């Protein structure tokens, strides 16, 4: 045993002796979390209580862990000039190693065991999902490293708490400005990944500098700069760029290029009625795709309208309520809307804008992001109860659920999968299911990001007096295999052609 290891173990042992009670408390919290995950009520998603009763633990546990990290770092503080360890002949490497061992043994390892136990209890063999379990460990590490960095530069644990509360408060206060989520289901939002990377690299730099050199002032300055950079990056990165980065890092498989042109629209009264709004001008532009496999998912990223008079209007989708107020036009893509063909919808923010855009033709420049999937073989689910789905996990069918909060009656099934590659599922001909887990600031802390399971739900509403459908649900795993940006231009479009006017009920319509 080298002297570094021997001394590291000595320091580790000392820290355990001192902090056993705190370790025990976090283990207790972790056990409660695992229990909650395992015993989460079936069809909890159906009631939109996605994390079940233990969702708060997804916030409480990281907070407890961060305190534990602060406590262990401050057993041998790195700031100040009065600490005992500095004059001991041990150097920085055994100290850093000791703290790393502590975090590994008291945080990472128990979390690994807890996630493995959850998988086991849910009927999965953890040994078959080791890469996924280690991925969860990496995500946790991405949280731990910034906490270590903060703990290394503050004077004491009270200051650590103050910094953590200040950061959390600041993030909450700025959450509107930060626009945490571009919108629902923005799987292509890479901001949190890059922000986490900035924080992790910054955290490693600050912690290393502080452990090796104990340059507290420099470390603090770097820490503040990193936090500012992360904040600035997150609030600045536009959707266009986020989607482009995503597509660049997971390119689509080679194949026929997807192109899009303006199609034709022959809506009936009922379809159009949904889109009519007497306070806003709504335009539905039908789209015709070529080279588009039905299993490709398309998201509208941005749209720019240039009027005949040369005025520019920009819109991005999805948007927050704040952005709706600030944007003069809003836009989106609807691929599966009843009997309507795929279309791009536009809402014009004011009568003045409508007047300008409807007076003459416009040029439309837009950007879609296409996500490609490779579906596996479908599995027919039992009408009630559990069905194992190869390549995915398992699904539970509810049978008819009487009177939910949202629907009169629901036919739902809920699936869980430990694999990231099976996050998307195809059910009943291709409608995409929502992910249960989307780790990242966009939904944190409501989502159970500590859970090793990803889940999705299919809920079909049925009117109370309607006869129950006789079909059986099928589910297929559909791992994503890449994505691509699709830019398009429609010159000389007369928006009047696609204006949604107040529907007049035709005689022939039922």
């Amino acid at each position, binding site marked *: 045993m080298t002297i570094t290891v*021997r*001394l590291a173990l*000595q320091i580790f042992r*000392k820290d355990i*002796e*001192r902090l056993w009670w705190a370790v025990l408390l976090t283990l207790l919290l972790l056990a409660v979390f695992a229990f909650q995950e395992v015993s989460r009520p079936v069809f909890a998603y159906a009631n939109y209580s996605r994390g079940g009763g233990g969702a708060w633990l997804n916030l409480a546990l990281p907070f407890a862990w961060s305190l534990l990290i602060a406590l262990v770092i401050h*057993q041998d*503080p790195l700031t100040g*000039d*009065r*600490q*005992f360890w*500095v*004059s*001991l*002949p*041990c*150097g920085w490497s055994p100290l850093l190693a000791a703290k790393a061992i502590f975090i590994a043994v008291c945080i990472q390892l128990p979390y690994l065991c807890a996630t493995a136990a959850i998988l086991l209890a849910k009927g999965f063999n953890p040994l078959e999902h080791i890469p996924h379990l280690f991925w969860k460990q990496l995500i946790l590490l991405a949280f731990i490293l910034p906490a270590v960095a903060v703990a290394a530069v503050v004077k004491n644990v009270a200051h650590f708490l103050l910094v953590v509360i200040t950061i959390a408060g600041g993030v909450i206060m700025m959450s509107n400005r930060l626009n945490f989520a571009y919108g629902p289901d923005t799987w292509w939002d890479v901001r949190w990944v890059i922000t986490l990377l900035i924080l992790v690299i910054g955290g490693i730099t600050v912690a290393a500098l502080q452990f090796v050199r104990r340059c507290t002032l420099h470390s603090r300055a770097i820490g503040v700069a990193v936090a500012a950079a992360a904040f600035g990056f997150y609030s600045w990165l536009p959707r266009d760029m986020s989607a482009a980065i995503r597509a660049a890092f997971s390119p689509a498989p080679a194949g026929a290029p997807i192109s899009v042109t303006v199609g034709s629209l022959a809506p009936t009264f009922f379809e159009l009625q949904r889109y009519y709004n007497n306070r806003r001008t709504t335009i539905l532009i039908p789209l015709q795709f070529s080279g588009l496999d039905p299993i490709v998912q398309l998201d509208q990223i941005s749209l720019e309208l240039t009027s005949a008079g040369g005025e520019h209007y920009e819109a991005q989708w999805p948007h927050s309520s704040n952005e709706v107020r600030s944007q003069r036009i809003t836009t989106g893509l609807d691929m599966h809307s009843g009997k309507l063909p795929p279309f791009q919808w536009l809402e014009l923010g004011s009568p003045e804008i409508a007047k300008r855009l409807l007076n003459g033709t416009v040029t439309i420049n837009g950007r879609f992001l296409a996500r490609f999937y490779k579906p596996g073989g479908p599995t027919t689910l039992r009408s009630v109860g559990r069905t194992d789905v190869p390549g995915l996990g398992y699904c539970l069918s509810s049978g008819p659920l009487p009177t939910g909060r949202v629907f009169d009656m629901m036919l739902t099934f809920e699936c869980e999968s430990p694999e990231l590659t099976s996050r998307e599922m195809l059910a009943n001909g291709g409608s995409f299911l929502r992910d249960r887990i989307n780790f990242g600031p966009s939904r944190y802390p409501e989502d159970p990001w500590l859970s090793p399971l990803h889940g999705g739900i299919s809920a079909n509403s049925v009117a109370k007096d309607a006869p129950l459908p006789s079909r059986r649900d099928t589910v297929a795993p559909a791992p994503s295999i890449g994505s691509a940006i699709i830019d398009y231009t429609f010159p000389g479009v007369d928006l009047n052609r696609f204006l949604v006017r107040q529907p007049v009920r035709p005689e022939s319509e039922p």
Partner: protein
Amino acid sequence: MNVMLRTDRLAKKFGKVEALTSLTLEVPEGSVFALVGPNGAGKSTAMKVCLNLLRASSGSAEVLGMDSRKLAPAQLARIGYISETRQLPDWMKVSRFLAYCKEFYPAWNDADAAEFVRAYELPLDRPLKSLSRGQRVKAALAAALAYHPSLLFLDEPFSNLDVLVRDQLIETILGAGSETTVFLASHDLAEIESFATHVAYMDQGEIRFTEEMSALSTRFRDVEVVLENGAPLPVDLPAAWLNAEQAGVVIRFTDSHFNAADHSAQIRRYFATAREVNVRAMPLRSIFVALAKSAKQNKGGR
């Protein structure tokens, strides 16, 4: 003569405050070197810079032949450090504290540690935080001396200790023998007078002088001259005669370069009507008071 610690124009600033201005000194091997001066003089800062607990603003320090900024575990294993402000792991019991320290020092001697525990009557089963200040210093000293350090830094080790404890600790330090060089900071001159071999006086971040104790004791004398008549105090007295005062026929001053051989002749040269001359050895405290007073006067004069 081997030098265990050497500083060269060492300076340390805290913002705009200069805690150390230009500290230059040498601590010879085997010595008990006392760095004395009033509170806030910069003694603790000097020690911390030497131990690389603080980074110097300028200048350099060499400890055990190594640049203090590069002190490695090999050097630290030969250095002991006891300070009243050092944060010990208070929650540890004395026995655990000693056992913990032992792991870091290859030269640790269990028998010696046990002997210190016995001599100091340290309660092994009590946590450090429950000990009195004297006992805590004893525990720290036992942990420091058990590995026979080559250089022992003591920062105000005896402050607020009762006389018995202080004497016991001094006895221990002296008992460490010539293998351990002691570099000690204190504001209490009386407590170090009995055992320091070298002394440096520090004030406002500067070393006023540094000297061997024996030479210092020999060099300084309190001189009282009684004149036949009330002749005025000559204005051109030697610069080495500090703080000269006259009260009637009695003149008093501190001779900072006392030389028994020519002292009488020198007195007669300046005080021809001297009737009586009394020369007394000075305690360290009086020497420093005289020096401080002289420095103040010179400063005022400027």
